[in-house]
């Protein structure tokens, strides 16, 4: 046992996690809360599919359906997929670039807690008189027309968690730019780091429009402004633009890190370097760039006119090119390799054809005149679940299995992993393939029921059956996690063997300072390069010395909690006298914490050289 990690009681461990600024622990926080919200969102999906299993079903009522539908989309995108991605970024990126920490440990923790309290607030609607019910896109006219407070939960909840996301994005950008180890040039960064970088840049520019949209809609609902009220001269199309200027880059924020995961997993288990590394980097940047000029493809039927529609249609199609480059590079990474079908590899391999199917329907949607037919039908639902579940979720599953040993020090069971894969993968195609046809056959999306005799029965039933398989797969995964944390095999530093990137050069889990000595990077696939030259590990770039560490802090949690409180005040201010005081108290808490943070100097502490030398030999050594 190391001198640094003594056995602690439950209370101490809890306190440790509440105050931690260690990126590896924050990763676990993201993973756990994101995983929880994934189950919630999945449960909501199951309700949707049960309701739609047969025509004229009355399993859930019309109003409730809209709430479930909205919360499914919102939860999955904002509270499940993004945080899970952040979880892996936090767990892996600093180690991959040979850093001891992120650029802003305190802000990192603040980002998490903002997300957490935002998500909590969003879900409060369920208990306080109604969840949001205007779809995850929350189009203005319907949202302003929606009675009760559901929409307000959406607006305020996303606003809070959005700030968290923005902070996380800035943190990763600064980390990747400033904290790379000696020799880790941009063109030697692993692809997961690259995609994190680009996705963070997208966050930086995509979230502000959402912030503005949410804020002005909140003004409309809470203070009676007229941005989206035609009677006052307002215009609801503004919301659509603001939402999609955010919304389209958002889908690339989700998929790019998943691409990054595949780009790390595929070479690892093919034992080959990534084919066309520089074109992969280029394609990533290009996708991010193009991602900002195509948003109106969600608005083809809004009536923007043929010129706008034509421009956005062609611009959208262009994204097929860089994405195609990636697809082929992945396949040629495996070409000539020695492919080992571990669970992460199976997910990654299965991703390729699945995602291509989702991507090409995207191109079909991009053809404006035909989108007039597809738009707001199940064809679109099929498209985006193919790219999101077939791309993002599969990426997350791959990443989960791949980095689980790095995060927790134990392997996940391979056999159960395969069972999860088979169930989920079969269920996935069963659920969503048929939906293409349902859409074309005239089934609009977001309908709580459909009438018998319109030819839609069979397809919907099949779709529901598939969803149950996915649920079964997920449950097996949970089982796998439980079982293996009890009696899983202990993972070595290089848990899978043949590791290529720096995260495999440190112990599993990594020590809190990641590297005893900052490693010297001498090429792409830093660890692999050393191994090929017969070295056991990384060459250090500095002598052993004291390591500077940041102090933990409870302030981020309290700061976020303040906004959580203030949001309640805002929500109820027009009907309860306590509204305004609560707003003031809430903001007071937050500002107070900011004030404390700025006046209390925080210089962190040092882990001394002597302690490092006594420390368990195999921790972070090879660096």
């Amino acid at each position, binding site marked *: 046992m190391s001198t640094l990690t003594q056995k602690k009681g439950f209370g101490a461990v809890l306190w440790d996690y509440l105050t931690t600024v260690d990126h590896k622990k924050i990763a676990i926080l993201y993973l756990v809360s994101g995983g929880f919200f994934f189950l919630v969102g999945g449960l909501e999906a199951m309700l949707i599919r049960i309701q739609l299993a047969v025509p004229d079903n009355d399993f859930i009522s019309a109003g409730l359906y809209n709430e479930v539908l909205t919360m499914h989309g919102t939860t999955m995108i904002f509270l499940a997929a993004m945080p899970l991605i952040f979880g892996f970024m936090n767990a892996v990126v600093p180690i991959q670039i040979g850093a001891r920490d992120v650029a802003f440990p305190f802000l990192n923790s603040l980002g998490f807690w903002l997300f957490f309290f935002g998500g909590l607030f969003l879900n409060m609607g369920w208990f306080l008189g109604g969840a949001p019910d205007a779809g995850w896109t929350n189009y203005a006219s319907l949202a302003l027309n929606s009675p009760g407070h559901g929409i307000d939960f959406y607006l305020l909840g996303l606003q809070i968690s959005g700030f968290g996301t923005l902070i996380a994005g800035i943190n990763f950008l600064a980390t990747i730019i400033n904290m790379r180890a000696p020799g880790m040039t941009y063109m030697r960064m692993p692809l997961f780091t690259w995609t994190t970088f680009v996705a963070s840049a997208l966050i930086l520019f995509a979230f502000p429009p959402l912030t503005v949209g949410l804020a002005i809609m909140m003004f409309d609902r809470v203070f009676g402004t007229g941005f989206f009220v035609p009677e006052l001269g*307002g215009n609801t199309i503004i919301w659509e633009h603001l939402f999609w200027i955010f919304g389209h880059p958002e889908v690339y924020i989700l998929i790019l890190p998943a691409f990054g995961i595949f780009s790390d997993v595929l070479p690892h288990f093919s034992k080959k370097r990534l084919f066309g590394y520089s074109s992969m980097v280029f394609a990533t940047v290009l996708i991010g760039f193009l991602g900002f000029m195509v948003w109106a493809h969600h608005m083809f039927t809004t009536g923007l006119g043929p010129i706008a529609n034509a421009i956005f249609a062609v611009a959208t199609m262009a994204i097929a090119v860089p994405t195609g480059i990636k697809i082929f590079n992945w396949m040629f990474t495996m070409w000539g390799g020695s492919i080992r079908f571990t669970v992460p590899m199976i997910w990654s391999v299965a991703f390729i054809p699945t995602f291509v199917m989702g991507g090409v329907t995207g191109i079909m949607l991009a053809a404006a005149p035909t989108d007039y037919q597809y738009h707001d039908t199940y064809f679109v639902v099929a498209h985006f679940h193919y790219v999101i579940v077939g791309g993002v979720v599969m990426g997350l599953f791959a990443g989960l299995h791949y980095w689980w040993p790095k995060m927790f020090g134990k392997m996940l069971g391979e056999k159960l992993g395969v069972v999860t894969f088979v169930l989920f993968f079969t269920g996935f195609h069963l659920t969503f393939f048929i939906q293409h046809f349902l859409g074309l056959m005239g089934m609009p999306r977001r309908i709580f029921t459909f009438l018998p005799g319109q030819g839609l029965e069979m397809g919907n039933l099949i779709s529901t059956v598939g969803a149950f398989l996915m649920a079964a797969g997920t449950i097996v995964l949970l089982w796998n996690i439980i079982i293996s944390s009890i009696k899983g095999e202990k993972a070595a530093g290089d848990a899978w063997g043949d590791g290529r990137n720096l995260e495999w050069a440190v112990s599993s889990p990594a020590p809190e300072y990641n590297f005893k000595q900052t490693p010297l990077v001498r090429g792409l696939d830093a660890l692999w390069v050393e191994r090929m030259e017969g070295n056991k590990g990384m060459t250090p770039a500095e002598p052993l010395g004291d390591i500077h560490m940041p102090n933990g802090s409870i302030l981020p949690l309290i700061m976020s909690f303040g906004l959580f409180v203030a949001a309640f005040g805002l929500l109820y201010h027009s009907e309860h006298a306590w509204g305004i005081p609560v707003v003031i108290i809430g903001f007071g808490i937050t500002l107070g914490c900011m*004030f404390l943070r700025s006046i209390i100097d925080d210089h962190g502490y040092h882990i001394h050289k002597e302690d490092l030398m006594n420390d368990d030999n195999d921790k972070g050594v090879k660096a």
Partner: protein
Amino acid sequence: MHVEEKLTAETFPASPEKSTLEGKNKFLGFWLFLGGETVLFASLFATFLALRNSDNGGATTQEMFELPLVFAATMLLLTSSLTSVYAMYHMKNFQFKKMQLWMGITVLLGAAFLALEIYEFNHYIHEYKFTITSSALGSAFYTLVGTHGAHVAFGLLWITTLMVRNAKRGLNLYNAPKYYVASLYWHFIDVVWVFIFTVVYLMGMVG
């Protein structure tokens, strides 16, 4: 070099804001933040532009806006930008007192600007019944200009806190980046204002 080490003019580095890792991170992170703020304000500007004629039958911008007032406000803010440059000049020369002084002047100018803005809003509300709820134009106007005003107010709070907190202990490598970043923020506010007086007020006079 420890961040709180007492320095002299000789040992003080040329770019104090970037001579520690924390400073470098702060510097970079803040610029990134400004990139995001650009888009935030752009969204507000865009919304304003889309709604600039939606006066709902109320007073139009041509009727309300008074150029002398806007001009005065502009001069105040532009000058405060220069005074904060002076503050940074003295920081680089390791002249803490002078830096504090110029920062103080910046704060005063900023406060004067804010006062003018409050007067202006008040004027519109009482004279023209032009409020944030009277028309979409009103909503867009007050939200855009008000967001800028809120930035000014936050900047004042921030700089004041910095000045008070560090008044006794002088300049070191721990707080130099903080001052630097605060002055960047202040310039940025000025940049936004340049577009506000151009796009909102001047263009509002043309119609």
